């Protein structure tokens, strides 16, 4: 049995005020350097919703334009927005901040989120027009509180403010007076992650054509930790999100591995389906508030808008073979092992070369590689370079070292087998999986014959190991259900059993 990719949804939320209030670069700066020039300049570099909506890399993330179309567009992208850009797209949507605050409240099960009464009134009307907001989700939104109460909680009760254009329209309060694991800061971070994942789950259930009651398992693969002081990373985001998304027959669990987690989760989901354990498994993740404006200092210094103002999410539905959708090749998985080491060539060998060798393939045999798909317009001004390009160069350079490619072909290899990066720098979000939706379509149309998804993670950031990590898998076209073959096998077995029985009878005589 094969495990196929039935659908992949991608959503973005434009969160300009959260950049200033919650991004870790900004919260750190307020501690270290409260009166800094950067903090003063930052508000002038914040984008409008319309500008974020028309931003070409964002259009690509939600499937409105392909990576190839993005690559052909004029740069800088922030000065060349797409006209008449719409909120909803093939893969998902770009939600504005005000509606998202209501969704955060709808995702709050412990009475921690409060919003100003007039704000709720006007915004609820907007959100109720959202095609995927069911009545039971909208009913979770509360009537609202006074401005005075909001000010009091932010100033006196350690609550985290929720702002629109700098004005407080609500707050998330702490869930415990002493336990820092349940502080307002962490509750906000976790609720944002939950709400953005829920939004992408709603899109996946809407577009996949699969009934929500058929989903049996959810694997959540973000980089947040949910728990209290006695079980700091206890979890379980997956089930909490499935609850709001209305997946009544699902249970689930969280899978962690820094930026590599989504690729690990895909392999796990595909294995659970292939083993026959579950028929439908969803891999899902919401976004990160901490990473908002992470490279903001460089963007401000260089006169750019702060481009890291998007909270992202995705949900991918992995199902048992339908004979149509592309499948995940579980026979040839690339793994960065403990023994691999950290040198870039060893890492690339483990993740790309070795699984291909085991499948009798060469590096140029793969039509498209998707490693880390960060939008270079965000990373280049911060001195981190063009990360997807560096990955394609590494893969090509390894092919040269292995004698599978001429050195002079390196640039054309990158052009042919790579692509322009588009994903927001939301940690786990860019790592291979943004291409899964496009790869599914390109394999269905026959535009490509295979793709390799590579997830990589910086485990050393957790200070428990110096190791790197990564896992890769191939997506292949489905050539139809294997019914014919199964029928033949069965027929063959029956014939064989029949012959053996007759043979045994002939040996044992007729007298039994």
């Amino acid at each position: 049995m094969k495990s196929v990719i039935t659908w992949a949804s991608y959503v973005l939320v434009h969160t300009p005020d959260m950049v200033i209030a919650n991004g870790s670069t900004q919260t750190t700066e307020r501690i270290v350097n409260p009166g800094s020039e950067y903090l003063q300049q930052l508000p002038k570099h914040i984008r409008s919703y319309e500008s974020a909506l028309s931003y070409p890399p964002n259009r690509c993330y939600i499937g409105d334009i392909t990576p190839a179309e993005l690559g052909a567009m004029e740069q800088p992208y922030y000065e060349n927005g797409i006209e008449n850009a719409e909120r909803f797209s093939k893969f998902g949507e770009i939600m504005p901040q005000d509606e998202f605050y209501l969704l955060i409240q709808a995702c709050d099960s412990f009475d921690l989120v409060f919003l100003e009464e007039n704000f709720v009134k006007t915004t609820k009307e907007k959100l109720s027009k959202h095609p995927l907001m069911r009545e039971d989700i909208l009913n979770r939104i509360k009537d609202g509180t006074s401005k005075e109460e909001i000010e009091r909680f932010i100033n006196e009760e350690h609550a985290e403010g929720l702002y629109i254009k700098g004005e407080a329209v609500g707050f998330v309060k702490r869930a415990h007076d002493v336990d820092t694991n349940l502080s307002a800061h962490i509750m906000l971070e976790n609720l944002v992650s939950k709400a953005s994942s829920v939004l992408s789950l709603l899109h996946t259930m809407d577009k996949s054509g699969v009934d929500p009651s058929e989903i049996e398992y959810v694997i959540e693969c973000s980089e947040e930790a949910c728990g209290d002081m006695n079980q700091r990373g206890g979890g379980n985001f997956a089930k909490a999100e499935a609850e709001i998304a209305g997946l009544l027959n699902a249970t689930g669990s969280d899978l962690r591995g820094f930026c590599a987690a989504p690729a690990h989760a895909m392999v796990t989901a595909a294995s659970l389906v292939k083993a026959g354990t579950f028929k439908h498994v969803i891999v899902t993740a919401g976004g990160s508030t901490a990473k908002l404006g992470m490279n903001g200092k460089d963007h401000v210094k260089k006169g750019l808008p702060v481009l890291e103002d998007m909270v992202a999410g995705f949900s991918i539905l992995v199902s048992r073979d339908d004979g149509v959708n592309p499948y995940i090749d579980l026979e040839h998985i690339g793994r960065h092992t403990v023994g691999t080491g950290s040198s870039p060539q060893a890492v690339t060998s483990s993740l790309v070369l070795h699984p291909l060798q085991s499948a009798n393939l060469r590096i140029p045999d793969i039509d498209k590689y998707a490693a880390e798909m960060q939008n270079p317009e965000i990373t280049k001004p911060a001195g981190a370079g063009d990360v997807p390009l560096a990955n394609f160069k590494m893969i090509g350079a390894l092919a040269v070292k292995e004698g599978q490619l001429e050195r002079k072909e390196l640039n054309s290899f990158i052009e042919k087998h790579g692509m322009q990066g588009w994903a927001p720098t939301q940690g786990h979000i860019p790592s291979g999986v943004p291409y899964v939706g496009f790869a599914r379509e390109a394999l269905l149309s026959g535009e490509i014959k295979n793709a390799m998804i590579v997830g990589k993670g910086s485990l050393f950031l957790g200070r428990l190991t110096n190791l790197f990590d990564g896992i890769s898998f191939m997506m292949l076209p489905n050539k139809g259900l294997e019914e014919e073959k199964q029928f033949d096998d069965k027929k063959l077995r029956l014939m064989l059993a029949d012959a053996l029985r007759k043979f045994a009878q002939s040996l044992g005589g007729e007298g039994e």
Partner: protein
Amino acid sequence: MDLENQKRVMEFAEKYGPENLVIILGSAEGEAAGIAAETVTAGDPTFAGPLTGVQLGLRVYHVCEEEIKNEIDPDIYDEQISMMEMVLDIDDIVSEMTAIRDEFCKY
């Protein structure tokens, strides 16, 4: 440069003496290499970390620069680094690093 790394650099400079330290970078880009090099010579240009305004003037190199590469066992270099010479813009890295060393390195 990461604030914790800046703290460590400062502590080791005090412990061993700045003249005995060499900083080796693995930066992906010339600009990032330049900023890291500036941080350990002239002080943190982003004004965020403990090295802000601290002019240590340390010796600092990128691992792909000839000065360092020449001291590394060629077999090990080939195994660990060489592929990245096809990926990184070495010329850009060298020119950034040289400019910073010429201006700020004290040793």
